[in-house]
């Protein structure tokens, strides 16, 4: 258990891969945590779909501005250099491929990079898609941040998504609590193993033919800790 990264550690791990100067959109939920772990001194410009670049962290409780919120409708702040724009411009930015990176949660990711993260397809669910489909196809890279397994123990990495898709072939990398995977033409390739996790273990948990990138780091979480 302790070998798996918790949400904060995973957010820190993702944040460490974001290059200085990148334009990044963080999805609702866990990806939002990435903002708290950006390396000090690096300038990463956060985009929020509701019309802002240069989004800063949450305000102090007394400084909540109801006109200044993120895609999750939580209070945020404005950094020097920020800019506001309307929704058509905001999604033009996405769709036009101007964001370097988007980090999303997922129900499932297929080995060809298909993403399912907006609906479980349950017949009585109220559907809601928001900006997920636009983000999935818009950013230059789409990283997914998620636990490897569902609460029921099923792998979120799958051969083919069974849930309704958000986007086709859009995911380029998946950060999970046990390992980091790249989506390659040959399917998922392990980029990094956390703790004592092994390739065989991952193959068993996912039921997928996984390869190992030559550059894969076996103990990245420790490496992280020792920085």
């Amino acid at each position, binding site marked *: 258990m302790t070998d798996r990264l918790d949400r904060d550690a995973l957010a820190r791990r993702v944040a460490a891969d974001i290059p200085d100067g990148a334009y990044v959109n963080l999805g609702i939920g866990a990806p939002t945590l990435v903002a708290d772990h950006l390396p000090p001194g690096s300038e990463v410009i956060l985009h929020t779909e509701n019309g802002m670049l240069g989004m800063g962290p949450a305000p102090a409780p007394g400084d909540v501005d109801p*006109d200044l919120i993120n895609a999750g*409708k939580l209070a945020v702040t404005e950094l020097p250099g920020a800019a506001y724009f309307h929704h058509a411009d905001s999604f033009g930015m996405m769709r036009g491929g101007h964001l370097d990176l988007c980090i999303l949660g997922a129900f499932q990711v297929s080995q060809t990079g298909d993403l399912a993260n907006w609906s479980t397809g349950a017949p009585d669910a109220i559907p*809601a898609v928001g900006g997920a489909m636009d983000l999935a196809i818009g950013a230059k890279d789409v990283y997914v941040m998620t636990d490897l397994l569902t609460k029921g123990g099923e792998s979120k990495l799958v051969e083919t998504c069974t849930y309704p898709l958000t986007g086709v072939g859009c995911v380029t990398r998946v950060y999970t609590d046990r390992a980091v995977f790249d989506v390659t033409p040959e399917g998922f390739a392990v980029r990094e193993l956390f703790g004592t996790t092994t390739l065989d273990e991952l193959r068993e948990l996912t039921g997928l033919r996984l390869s190992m990138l030559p550059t894969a780091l076996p103990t990245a979480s420790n490496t992280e800790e020792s920085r």
Partner: protein
Amino acid sequence: MIDKTVADLREAVAGITDGATVMVGGFGRAGQPVELIDALIDAGASELTIVSNNAGGGDLGLARLIAEGRVRKVVCSFPRQTDSWHFDRAYREGRLELELVPQGNLAERIRAAGAGIGAFYSPTAVGTPLAEGREHREIDGRTYLLEHPIRADVALISGLRADRWGNVVYRRTARNFSPIMATAATTTVVQVDEIVPLGTLDPEAIVTPGIFVDRVVAVGVRRWLRDGEFVGGVDLQGEPLAAPTAAPAADPATASIAGGDR
């Protein structure tokens, strides 16, 4: 002389008929024209089709319009929120229809209506259930879906300031859908905190030029602002921060502690 200002909220929403399609600005609570919606409820129109990003949260504004049974259909990207109980109930009881549109397509379709574009090809939603039955087209090796404009009879939007020509500026992320909705409706009605003299707004910074605006009504400066500057002291809904023993007043207007006079 051009004077698009109207005296009160009743006049601002006059003429909105049963069955009208109404665009409502805002993303969650930010930029939602709550006062105009309240006036619309008072005015009595029903069987409305609402075009908005969300389907209301809490008990105010759009949520109240739905709770009052005035809405026949909602066109939106994200109806389901933790506090969308009025929409949820109406939807589950089959009292309203939902057309779900990905947020970027919603925005672009509204813009297309305002800009006279007949239709456009968007890459969003290709390969998803929302693409079923839709026209697909491959352009330069990529697959797109044909998307049509969304027009409305009325747009209700909320800005920070306007002048008598109807030029509007917004504040921070409260801008969101309002500038494009203003272009896509036959009649665009704007509520603002204050109306300022013509020539006061910086011509370089006007976001919605008056050509898109039909009526402007002042509703008073919000309680978290003073002279258009943020002074704090509210929660995310704009309610005054609770003092240790703050008793919720029966009349929300009296609860203003931060200088607002909404």
